[in-house]
């Protein structure tokens, strides 16, 4: 049995740190783990996607349409873009934050309205204002750890294991902030 998670967002939102943290948690649980990401263009505000897969034995590093058990989305438009990758019965955990893409900034297209409502009619969705919670924790940069907190509630892994992975992944001077961000996400 392989479990597939997709982390999607906008370049610069900290999705790579989130996937690294998740990877560390899963390895500590003794799973075979594969992570896949695409570098390069994604550093410049493009759409980014990271695949995290774990189980007894993982083959393909990528997640295909209809295969994701969870999608952890950092931006609501990206949730709409990637929803087809969610399997039947899968869960979408999404930030409600909006970041305008270039075609919207230039006025060529409009940012779609009512995405959360539409997605909720399609799948099991939990929408969270992760930016607000991150600011509450002390920094808007902690959006990624807030969202990891949201995901942690859904997974059968003890809270201590998550906190230990956070200790191992984030710089010491930001540890308390990140722990707070994690808890706010976990309780959301």
């Amino acid at each position, binding site marked *: 049995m392989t479990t597939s998670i997709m982390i999607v967002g906008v370049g610069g939102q900290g999705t790579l740190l989130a996937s690294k943290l998740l990877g560390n948690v899963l390895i500590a649980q003794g799973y075979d783990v594969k992570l896949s990401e695409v*570098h390069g263009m994604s550093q410049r505000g493009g759409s980014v996607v990271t695949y995290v897969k774990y189980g007894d034995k993982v083959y*393909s590093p990528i997640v295909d349409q209809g295969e994701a058990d969870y999608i952890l989305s950092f931006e609501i438009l990206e949730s709409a873009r990637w929803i087809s990758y969610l399997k039947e019965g899968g869960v979408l955990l999404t930030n409600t934050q909006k970041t305008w893409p270039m075609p919207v900034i230039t006025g060529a297209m409009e940012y779609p309205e009512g995405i959360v409502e539409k997605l909720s009619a399609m799948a099991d969705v939990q929408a969270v204002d992760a930016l607000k919670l991150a600011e509450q924790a002390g920094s808007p940069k902690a959006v990624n750890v807030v969202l990891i907190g949201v995901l942690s509630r859904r997974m059968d892994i003890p809270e201590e294991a998550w906190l230990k992975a956070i200790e191992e992944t984030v710089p010491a001077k930001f540890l308390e902030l990140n722990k707070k961000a994690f808890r706010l996400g976990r309780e959301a």
Partner: protein
Amino acid sequence: MKKLMLGNQAVARGLYEAGCRFVSSYPGTPSTEITEQAALYDEIYAEWAPNEKVAAESAVGASLAGARSFCAMKHVGFNVAADPLFTASYTGVNGGLVVCVADDPGMHSSQNEQDSRHYAIAAKLPMVEPSDSRECRDFVKAAYEISERFDTPAVLRTCTRVAHSQCLVELHARDEQALKPYERNPQKYVAAPANAVKRHVEVEKRMEALRTFAETTELNRVEMGDTAIGFVTSGTCYLYVKEAFPEASVLKLGLVNPLPVKRIADFAAKVERLIVVEELDGVIEEHLRRNGIRVDGGKDLFGYLGELSQNKIRVALGAALPAYKAYDETVPGRPPVMCPGCPHRGLFTVLSKLKLTVLGDIGCYTLGSGAPLNAVDSVLCMGASIGMAHGYTKMLGEEAAQHTVAVIGDSTFMHSGITGVVNLAYNKSIATVLVLDNSITGMTGHQQAEPHHGPDAAERAHLSY
């Protein structure tokens, strides 16, 4: 100890463990992190070269000096390095020489999706292809053994999904390799016609020996399962096959040049349908057909374009796909844009307002072609802006030349633009060239790969990790 490692990080680990001493590369997605990671090992001398040709020549020189040496490049980088490497195939090596070429099926960050396996065939070089990070490490070691045993540069082929995926890798100790003494041998190392004629004989003997090796090497392996379908595959496609058809029989090829014949024929005889799964060109499939081995499905099912995936393999073979629901409204795209604060933004805004013809180059200038800048007329390959501006303005004359500029970045200029400028001077060109110096190799993730600036690869790597 096991560690979650990026494919590129595992290649660097393989270099360390194999006793490699010398690395020279030019950055190119998806190969860049290999050299950055190799620079973190004190036992390895690692540097950025101005281009892939110089990197390859430097690695050949280090091999001549008796060191296990290495260079990495993206697939189009091999075009630049091809000149020294085709003849290094004739001269052979002293210390083992491994060249990594990273293909980019699907063109995540490239201008074409050429298939590097053709190079291994054309240059008569052995090529190994790992599927994941663990194999990246293992196959680097295997490539050094092949290089030294068969007196040849060996090529390690990766692709974006191998280079930028992570899996657990067991760490081993370094196998320190003493420098092999250099012995003067002009008949081997001076590629003049009289010598090269004899060396070509050795190259053909070597290929014959490698074909025999391909029949028995553990790099190729059979996993027998259900015999209704047998897959012949390699690299990342092996993982997609295992994901889509975990029960099927598979012949996994780790040595992709030269390919075995008898081993594939034996496998084909044991299965009802033989399906060849490979991204890009039908290199394995053509090998089978040429050797009279039946193929029941290959490029006719999968085509020549982009990446494969488990679902693409399921679809091609008529298997059920996982159910899913797509968002039923158009979702605006999110293309990458230039970094905030990059000086190129202002320049492209001006060029666009002036409505100039802009012959662009490789790098972030491709980002100047999209909305809202819409400033670039052409992008071809590293350094091409200058040569193209020369030919364009020679044909259209001074009036057109006043409305035409070549635009090239500092790293690309050092890579292969500079010879174009020599040509402008020699052939009395009327072209205008703008060298945009932002003091960084930006597109590949901010390497300092311009000889006129800043710290070298080793210093940079230590700074950024």
